[in-house]
């Protein structure tokens, strides 16, 4: 079992263990879960000395040909929108602290001057304190804790969703660059055809009609190539934005080809239940139900006693005599017995439960759809590899053999070569779809696919109290080259 996972699970299960007002605002939990789920580091830029290390690490990663995990890692460390969403942790934690604070007592002084003798000043002094709020603190703290946990789950979910987006953007880019190269070959073949037709035209061997037909094909191929280039530039810019890069940092490169599909497909059994157990947004929605349920409980329990103050009041009357005595103020629930608040909370609770169920159903459906798509896309890719691409290659080879024996012309062969490359383009699109589907499926199940993905990331062991450990340490930087 992955020790990080244990930590992450501990975070998830014993959120109370993350004491309020930690310096990292509970970010350590986010980091541990992301490490377990995505195998990657996150860093919250809070002006610590670790920043320099992070910047150096980004610089080093960017200097090599970027793999998907490299790009995701840089994005996690460097994307400012993600940094901004980490700040939600601070806000939520402030709410939690606030919920645990006693309300301050109220002091009042009230001097009064008589308009007829005796003319000594009447002074009234008093201290009041809303003791009911104090009695409610444990309940409110629990409620705020649940909400805080929800925010942390939400932030972590956001990180994992972001990871999925970056992966998609990465595969889109690698494919787009690969496709641009494929379309360049098509354009070159069309160019060669056109130039040959020009030479033939100069020699007086072809009518202008043939020449213009070749020209039209050439121009079309050039436009296709230009469009492919544009798409690759767009994809690159999207990734620059996701990785938070600008200026000199944008001179990174990715491999010329998409990675091969893994030879063995990840286990895809029990993915639905895995997703239900894993999805942090689902947990977040569950926390919302819990929070509303708690709020409803508090309101119900205290519906008749929502305002109760005790105090002490002392008054010096005009004769100089001090009158001192306790004070009690209680709201009499004659008319408003919090019926409206309770009804509102009941409705909200019902709505949150429905949302939770709906989300669970949607997750199951999404997982099923993506799983099917993954398997079908794999089949299509395998078909392209085993049959379709070799068929078009063979067609080129056979066309060339026919050309060699002067049975067909070279235009025919170049056309076959173009068709081969267009087929290869379709193949690249399918490989890209495979990887994107895989990234989406990982996002949908809230964990990486592995050979036994159905179970490994799911089992939640008993909580440990190790949560504070990694959070209080220096940011663990993975050594170079240890990426999965």
């Amino acid at each position: 079992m992955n020790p990080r996972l244990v930590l992450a699970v501990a975070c998830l299960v014993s959120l109370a263990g993350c004491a309020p007002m930690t310096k990292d605002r509970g970010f350590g939990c986010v980091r541990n879960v992301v490490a377990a789920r995505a195998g990657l580091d996150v860093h919250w830029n809070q002006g610590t000395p670790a920043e320099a290390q992070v910047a150096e690490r980004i610089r080093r990663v960017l200097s090599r040909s970027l793999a998907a995990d490299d790009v995701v890692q840089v994005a996690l460390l460097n994307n400012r929108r993600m940094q901004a969403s980490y700040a939600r942790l601070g806000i939520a934690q402030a709410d939690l602290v606030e919920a645990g604070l006693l309300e301050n007592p109220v002091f009042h002084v009230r001097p009064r001057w008589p308009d007829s003798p005796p003319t000594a000043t009447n002074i009234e002094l008093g201290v009041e304190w809303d003791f009911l709020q104090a009695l409610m603190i444990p309940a409110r703290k629990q409620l705020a804790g649940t909400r805080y946990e929800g925010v942390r789950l939400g932030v972590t979910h956001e990180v994992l969703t972001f990871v999925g987006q970056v992966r998609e953007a990465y595969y889109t880019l690698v494919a787009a660059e690969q496709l641009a190269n494929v379309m360049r070959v098509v354009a070159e073949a069309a160019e060669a055809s056109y130039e040959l037709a020009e030479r033939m035209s100069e020699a007086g061997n072809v009518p202008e009609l043939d020449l213009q037909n070749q020209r039209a094909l050439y121009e079309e191929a050039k436009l296709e190539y230009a469009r492919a280039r544009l798409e690759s530039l767009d994809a690159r810019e999207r990734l620059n934005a996701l990785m938070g890069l600008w200026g000199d940092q944008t001179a990174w490169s990715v491999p010329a080809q998409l990675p091969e599909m893994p030879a063995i497909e990840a286990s895809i059994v029990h993915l639905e239940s895995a997703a239900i157990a894993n999805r942090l947004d689902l947990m977040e929605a569950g926390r919302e139900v819990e929070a509303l349920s708690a709020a409803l409980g508090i309101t119900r329990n205290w519906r008749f006693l929502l305002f109760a103050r005790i105090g002490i009041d002392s008054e010096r009357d005009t004769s100089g005599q001090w009158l001192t005595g306790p004070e009690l103020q209680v709201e009499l629930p004659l008319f408003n017995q919090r019926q409206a608040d309770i009804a509102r909370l009941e409705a909200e609770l019902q709505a949150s439960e429905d949302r939770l169920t709906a989300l669970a159903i949607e997750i199951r459906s999404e997982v099923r759809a993506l799983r099917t798509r993954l398997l079908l896309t794999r089949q299509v890719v395998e078909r392209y590899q085993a049959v379709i691409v070799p068929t078009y290659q063979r067609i080129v080879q056979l066309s060339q053999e026919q050309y060699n024996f002067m049975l067909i012309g070279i235009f025919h062969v170049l056309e076959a070569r173009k068709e081969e490359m267009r087929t290869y383009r379709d193949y690249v699109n399918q490989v890209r779809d495979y990887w994107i589907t895989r990234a989406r499926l990982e996002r949908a199940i809230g964990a990486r696919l592995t050979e036994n993905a159905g179970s490994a990331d799911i089992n939640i062991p008993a909580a440990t109290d190790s949560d504070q450990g990694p959070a209080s340490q220096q940011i663990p930087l993975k050594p170079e080259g240890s990426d999965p």
Partner: protein
Amino acid sequence: MITRRDFVTTGLAVGGATLVGLQRASAQDAPPIVRPKSNESPPQGDSSFTGVVTPNGASLPHVMRDGVKEFHIVAEACVREFAPGMEVKCWGYNGQTPGPTIECNEGDHVRLFVTNHLPEHTTIHWHGIFLPSGMDGVGGLNQPHIRPGETYVYEFTLRQHGTFMYHPHADEMVQMAVGMMGLFIVHPKHPRKNQIQRDFAIMLHNWQVNPGTYRPDPSIMVEFNMWTFNSRVFPGTDHLVVRTVDRVRIRFGNLSMWNHPIHVHGHAWKIVATDGGEIQEAGQWPETTVLVPVGSTRDVEFIADAPGDWALHCHMSHHTMNAMGHAIPNTLGVDQRGVAEKIRSLLPGYMAMGESGMAEHQDHAMQMAGPKNTLPMMTGKGQFGNIEMGGMFTVLKVRDGITSYEDPGWYAFPAGSVARRVG
């Protein structure tokens, strides 16, 4: 010389005997099936005539039974090598296309058993031979079709001499397109005035064997790509070896869909007969090219008086080439420098062809891969270089004082007798 009238009279006189023979014959009586191998059976001449040489082919042996010359012809599928490197799935007779040459003498009474081993019915028509109408072999018109597995017998007396042909007259379009045809030679009863020393029989045909395929396409009407002498293409064609001053006869039969002007180098010949009979000497004239029309035979004769290696070929130049595309772009005179390199980067091995003609093609084709079972369009090597031919092309080899008609190899040219470079 037999007149038509004589023939009809004599035909009627023996009609009874023919019918008696037919009634007697049964499939069990048929002679054993023989599939003579090319060049294995020597010319079947006797004292009165010189046997026919069928280049790349053979004559069909017969058996004599009660004074009747019996042959057993089997219609069947066979594989024919057109030239080394190309084998074609054909239909033919007795394991070959063209079927073995049938040789008889004028006056012979012949009984021809025909067994059908094809997957569909067939018949045999005896092209040019005068015979009773019921023996003429047009399926449906003269006889029932010979269904697969059946054996029919044809029986008639040969009243004429000359060069005739046999072929199906049932589903002709398919059966002839895939090679079913043969020559039927009838030698004259009376010795000729001019004794022949070498007597060749060559069937002309056309085929569409699409490059990369093995079976002729029977749906083609005009656009053929293989042109054959006895179902062979140059350089697969046997050379015609003769001795100087031999009187040579060459019999051409044409069951293709084109007329073929067959041209001989170094000699002039005369057409001495057609499938309609002999041409009297007064009507013969010398020429170097004989046009062999579709559905005809032509017998030409000449004295081989010029020693050497002489081309003998159809003069339609595309009939002396093997398969070539007809819709390829014309690259003659097209400078491909610069473009060729670009194409090569896309198609490794690309070779620009045709800028200064196609002469270089034979050398290119030898280095480059082509479609399966397809011959380069120009091929063959002689002692001075590429011959750049194909199809209906062979070599007439005239040699002094040879004692055998085995292939003597290339001609040893006397010193100083070959065109030479002087500039």
